[in-house]
């Protein structure tokens, strides 16, 4: 007895999961399943056991082995061509996305792949992007073989339709790095050369060096002016043509005037110019741009259905199975869908028991049974045995893809965002031009010689460097803080948008309910220990989610062997456990003739239990709500209008109404399209809507709303296109995130005032026509540094106050 108890705590050497009753033992090590043991066997054969020394239990359990034919499509020339980065006769290079990698053992093993496959000449991991770059010889191996090898050791790459349809953009960030590098280099050297001038040169040095220093500075400022600052001129020009004045216009104006006046002073020997100010300014604003550009590498905010779809499916032609890329599927093709595979297009069920999980598309969590001849819409996932389907629509015309043909997915919603900085910079630019012209005219009347001097000085000193830095640093800091708290935003502007919202729309399934942590009650007479054992022993044999839940709840260590086990997919299980006949399943399964005198309820899913033809009662399985939901809704109720849109039936209406309060509007059985139009209706009433959803069924609504937040259990897995990806574990912090965003916008406004004060001080020198290069050289960096320090420190303080890390 004690022996079984001690075994209970055994964890798998490979994956660290708790082993059940009978751990598989090999070489004194315990494994939870055959999959894990096999991986260990492969690794130990190849002397790769360091894998287990780097981190303990680094593996991932392989409970569902992938089918042998799954990756056959990788032999297809067309597919291969699109996946491969580089192909030179005998050598191919490819980059695979492996979402499962999670620790340094993973990196080590993947980089030692050559020990497992001699054809691999080089493998390199980019851990943050979860990418594996491979180089291999086509003579000895192929992409299919490598991918199969990776899958067999638990690192199945995610290859989907998106990979072959879009080309990844590269090199955009590098350009900015070059620009910063050049600006920084020139800034440093110009400062060095300008210093003697500021400290005062004696007569000898002035004669000999002053002119040289001036020309050197001009020479060094040229790359800054022509290369590093290039984008500001381009953007200002673009903006002006569209009659849109952003921060780029005064910046470009300031940079241009700085360069022109300095060059004139140097060439005419009238002064030393402001080249150090110019280089410093460009360097600082580029740093701001870079700081703001932080992206979350592993997350993709622009996913559509293509990221969910497989590249190819098995097709039966002339009794043989071949693999065909889904884009080439024709109406009438017979396709084969195996356990856990996605149905790529609308098709008719021809053979097999279909038990389809539509949670991607509709949000319904329970699998749906389909009968022969029924149409199954794209996006469903088959659970259970292999089925055969006949394609009835092309992939591009299926029900699911229609959603993406909606106008919302065609238009860019960048333009609708008007940031605080943009609003301010329009007025700022006008004010600046007016002051410059006014001071020029004033001097024209009283001292014409100083007129041009004053005009250019105003434009130089008012160049909104500090203003241009306040938003990037406040928003960039906020973005990092939110990211640390598992609230990942697409771009910094999103923070300002979040601060503006006034209504919040929730999706139900998967968003406020947690489908994998349901609450289970048993209704009926209390089960005896023996009965529990019987039920668990039977349920253990099924992979159906409800059976798994029951096993979880009634955790049992002793399993009785089962004879004559039968499972009718989607209905129930039966078999002889020991000597006793046990049946569990739906009411219909237990009482085929329709006999049913139990209370029928829509509130939850029921699983009935029958032992030896004796009705014992039923399990009631309710979706459980996310932790802290009650508290969160109570907080949000005070500030926002709340709505609920669910694809599910309205069995939980009563619960929900209680939770959301009398005033909240709840809608059930909403199709993806209805969700989208509902959001639009709210927006037409001038509401700023935040949509919180998860599945593909919310994709339209997420895109249409002002802020779309997709809740994800695992952020490296797929989530629909949205502005924010929120880790499910921080769902109850949603209110904090909104409050923090509001605080961040306050910080931006405060830092704007600071930079205005600096500008006014500078302007008071400039309008008098006596802005010396030294004052400019001190004021500009000083204002920038103050603003950077102020925004980052206050934003961080607000985060601490708001309970964020």
């Amino acid at each position: 007895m004690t022996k079984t108890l001690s075994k209970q705590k055994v964890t798998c050497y490979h994956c660290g999961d708790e082993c059940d009753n009978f751990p598989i033992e090999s070489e004194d090590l315990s494994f939870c399943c055959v999959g894990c043991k096999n991986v260990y066997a492969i690794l130990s054969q190849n002397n790769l056991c360091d894998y287990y020394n780097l981190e303990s239990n680094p593996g991932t359990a392989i409970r569902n082995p992938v089918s042998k034919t799954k990756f056959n499509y990788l032999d297809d020339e067309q597919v291969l061509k699109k996946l491969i980065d580089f192909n030179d006769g005998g050598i191919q290079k490819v980059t695979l996305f492996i979402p499962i990698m999670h620790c340094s053992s993973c990196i080590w093993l993947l980089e030692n792949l050559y020990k497992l496959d001699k054809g691999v000449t080089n493998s390199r991991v980019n851990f943050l992007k979860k990418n594996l770059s491979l180089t291999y010889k086509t003579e000895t191996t192929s992409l299919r073989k490598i991918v199969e090898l990776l899958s067999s050791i638990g690192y199945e790459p995610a290859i989907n339709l998106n990979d072959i349809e879009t080309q990844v953009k590269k090199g955009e960030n590098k350009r900015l790095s070059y620009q910063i590098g050049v600006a920084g280099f020139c800034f440093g050297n110009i400062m060095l050369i300008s210093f003697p001038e500021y400290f005062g040169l004696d007569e000898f040095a002035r004669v000999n060096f002053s002119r040289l220093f001036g020309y050197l500075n001009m020479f060094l400022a040229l790359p800054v002016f022509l290369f590093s600052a290039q984008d500001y001129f381009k953007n200002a020009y673009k903006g002006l043509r569209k009659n849109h004045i952003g921060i780029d216009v005064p910046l470009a104006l300031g940079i241009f005037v700085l360069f022109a006046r300095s060059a004139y002073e140097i060439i005419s020997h009238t002064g030393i110019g402001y080249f150090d100010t110019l280089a410093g300014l460009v360097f600082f604003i580029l740093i701001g741009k870079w700081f703001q550009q932080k992206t979350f590498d592993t997350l993709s905010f622009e996913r559509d259905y293509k990221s969910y779809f497989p590249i190819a499916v098995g097709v039966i032609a002339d009794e043989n199975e071949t693999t065909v890329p889904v884009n080439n599927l024709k109406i009438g093709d017979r396709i084969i869908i195996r356990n856990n595979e996605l149905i790529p297009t609308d098709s008719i069920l021809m053979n097999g028991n279909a038990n389809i999980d539509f949670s991607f598309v509709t949000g319904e969590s329970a699998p749906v049974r389909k009968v022969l001849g029924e149409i199954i819409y794209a996006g469903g996932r088959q659970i259970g045995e292999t089925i055969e389907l006949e394609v009835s629509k092309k992939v591009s015309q299926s029900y699911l893809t229609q959603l993406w043909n909606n106008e919302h997915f065609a238009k860019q919603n960048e333009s609708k965002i008007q940031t605080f900085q943009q609003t301010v910079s329009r007025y700022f630019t006008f004010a600046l031009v007016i002051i410059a012209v006014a001071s020029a005219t004033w001097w024209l009347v009283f001292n014409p010689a100083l007129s041009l001097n004053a005009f250019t000085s105003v434009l130089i000193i008012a160049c909104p460097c500090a203003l241009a830095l306040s938003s990037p640093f406040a928003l960039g800091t906020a973005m990092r803080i939110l990211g640390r708290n598992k609230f990942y935003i697409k771009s910094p502007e999103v923070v300002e948008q979040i601060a503006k919202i006034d209504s919040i729309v929730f999706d139900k399934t998967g968003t406020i309910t947690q489908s994998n942590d349901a609450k289970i009650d048993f209704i009926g007479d209390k089960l005896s220990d023996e009965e529990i054992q019987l039920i668990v022993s039977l349920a253990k044999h099924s992979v159906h989610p409800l059976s798994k839940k029951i096993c979880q709840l009634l955790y049992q260590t002793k399993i009785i062997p089962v004879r004559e086990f039968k499972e009718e997919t989607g209905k129930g299980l039966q078999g002889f456990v020991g000597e006793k006949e046990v049946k569990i399943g739906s009411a219909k399964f237990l009482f085929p003739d329709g006999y049913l005198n139990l209370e029928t309820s829509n509130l939850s899913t029921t699983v009935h239990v029958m032992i030896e033809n004796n009705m014992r009662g039923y399990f009631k399985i309710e979706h459980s709500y996310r932790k802290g939901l009650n508290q969160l809704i109570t907080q949000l109720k005070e500030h926002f209008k709340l709505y609920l849109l669910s694809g599910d039936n309205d069995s939980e209406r009563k619960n929900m109404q209680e939770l959301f309060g009398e005033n909240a509007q709840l809608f059930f059985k909403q199709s993806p399209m209805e969700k989208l139009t509902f959001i639009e209706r709210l927006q037409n009433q001038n509401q700023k809507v935040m949509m919180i959803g998860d599945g593909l069924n919310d994709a339209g609504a997420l895109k249409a709303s002002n802020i779309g937040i997709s809740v994800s259990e695992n952020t490296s897995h797929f989530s629909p296109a949205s502005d924010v990806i929120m880790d499910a574990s921080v769902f109850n912090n949603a209110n904090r995130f909104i409050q923090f965003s509001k605080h961040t916008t306050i910080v931006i406004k405060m830092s704007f005032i600071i930079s205005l004060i600096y500008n006014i001080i500078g302007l008071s020198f400039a309008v008098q026509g006596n802005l010396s290069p030294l004052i400019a050289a001190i004021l500009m960096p000083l204002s920038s540094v103050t603003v950077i320090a102020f925004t980052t420190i206050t934003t961080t303080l607000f985060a601490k106050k708001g309970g964020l890390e």
Partner: protein
Amino acid sequence: MNVMYLLIGCSLLMAIGFLFAFIWSVKSGQMDDDYTPSVRILFDDIEIKKNKTEEQEIKKN
């Protein structure tokens, strides 16, 4: 004082050298991944250690 011209030229040349080193490092992808190399460097240690112990064993034998 003429040596100043030489010194200025030298310092500029050195700075340009560093600028090109920076551009080269960006171009060759050293800035793309700032996490994995920090882990990777530890792996080599383990392998070297292992080789050493093996060598030692061989020597002992």
